[in-house]
């Protein structure tokens, strides 16, 4: 199937035909096939002149129109004999398709005119646990965090050159660093937290530091909407909670040299 940049205005060959019929104020059931074929082909020509790609369907319809036109020229009963019915018209099949297509085109317009949810009318989006928290942000799951982390890691160059020197970065240092940031600006985007980080080990350590602060409820990780940016923000008594944990860590640090 060819790319269909071309006829955003026409949803397909039937749509184009309907357009031409309407433009010429013709009746679907009695299409002057020669005129319509001519205009149809002219439209395709125009599109091709404009270097627009004409999809295969449009060409199939062009062939169909030419075929019908040729059969219209034959005297009745002279067309191969498989249409013995009285009053057979080579346009019948096309007329049926056009009428049916038009019917659904109108049905689609009717649907579009209804009160469409999230366009005209809205339901509540907040989580149902009313008393849960003062903020409407949803808390982010571990899986979403891991997925976000993976995105960050995937962006890193594959070389692991710096890992050896950076291994000494500690979870405690990262926790302190994160707390400093949040003291200064109250919240930070998850991704920007990792912006300056260049090795996988450092990312993991940063991530662990973040998880630890979440665990002791010094910080919250929230998201305004599904798949939206993840934000890290200071909890109400961040300093009170975090200080103990960070200090406790000062004694023994597994990542330390």
């Amino acid at each position, binding site marked *: 199937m060819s790319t269909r940049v071309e006829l955003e205005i026409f949803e397909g060959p039937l749509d184009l035909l309907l357009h031409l019929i309407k433009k010429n104020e013709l009746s679907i059931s009695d299409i002057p096939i020669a005129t319509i074929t001519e205009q149809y082909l002219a439209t395709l020509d125009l599109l091709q002149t404009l270097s627009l790609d004409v999809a295969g369907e449009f060409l199939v319809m062009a062939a169909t129109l030419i075929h019908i036109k040729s059969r219209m020229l034959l005297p009745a009963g002279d067309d191969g004999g498989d249409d013995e019915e009285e009053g057979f018209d080579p346009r019948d099949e096309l007329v049926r398709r056009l009428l049916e*297509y038009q019917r*659904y085109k109108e*049905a689609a317009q009717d649907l579009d005119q209804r009160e469409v949810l*999230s366009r005209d009318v809205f339901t509540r989006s907040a989580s149902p646990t009313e008393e849960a928290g003062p903020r409407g942000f949803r808390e982010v799951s571990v899986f979403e965090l891991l997925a976000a982390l993976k995105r960050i890691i995937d962006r890193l160059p594959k070389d692991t050159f710096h890992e050896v020197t950076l291994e000494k970065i500690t979870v405690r240092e990262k926790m302190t660093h994160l707390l400093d940031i949040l003291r200064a600006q109250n919240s930070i985007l998850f991704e920007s937290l990792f912006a300056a980080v260049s090795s996988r080990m450092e990312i993991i350590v940063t991530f662990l530091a973040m998880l630890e602060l979440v665990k002791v409820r010094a910080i919250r990780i929230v998201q305004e909407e599904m798949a939206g940016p993840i934000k890290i923000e200071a909890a109400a008594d961040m300093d009170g909670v975090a200080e103990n944990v960070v200090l406790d860590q000062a004694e023994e640090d597994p990542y330390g040299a």
Partner: protein
Amino acid sequence: MEREEVKSILESLLFVADGPLTVQRFAEVVDGIDKETIHILLQELQSDLEAPSRGLQLVEVAGGYQLRTAKINGEWVKKLLGGRPARMGRATLETLAIIAYRQPITKAEIEAIRGVDVDGVITTLLERTLIRAVARKDVPGRPFLYGTTAEFLQLFNLKDLTDLPTLKDTDEISLPEISRDVIPLEQAEES
């Protein structure tokens, strides 16, 4: 329980519900209240909300009741919520209309009506759970038959499928005849 109390409970339930609530569900939760009373109170709630100072409406949709914002306030709500999903394109709408009225229907049958390939559109509609595969058609290749979902009803504020506006009869040609004619076309196309 007092009538007022029950009405108050119904409002609370409607407020927190994830989707439309059926009278049945109300009756299960608020035990001891008969469905008739629930029905009457919901009607009352519905008309309370018609006051010009109210910004909500109680719609009957997908077999249940749901609170939604008043249509007249749509623009303000959009402004509050910020960037919202774009309008549905014509290709999507047309395909959805065909599926809604002709379900269960195969992709090939839809393509015969629209005259164009609908692969991408079907994928989008499946992803948005507006349609689902309901069966396979007993023809060569056993293609999927698609139908609309409850989400479809919710999206277009429809009680059920019979609530769809009647298809305009543009001519004397009846639907069965059309579909009979359409099948050979598909076979020709496939071969």
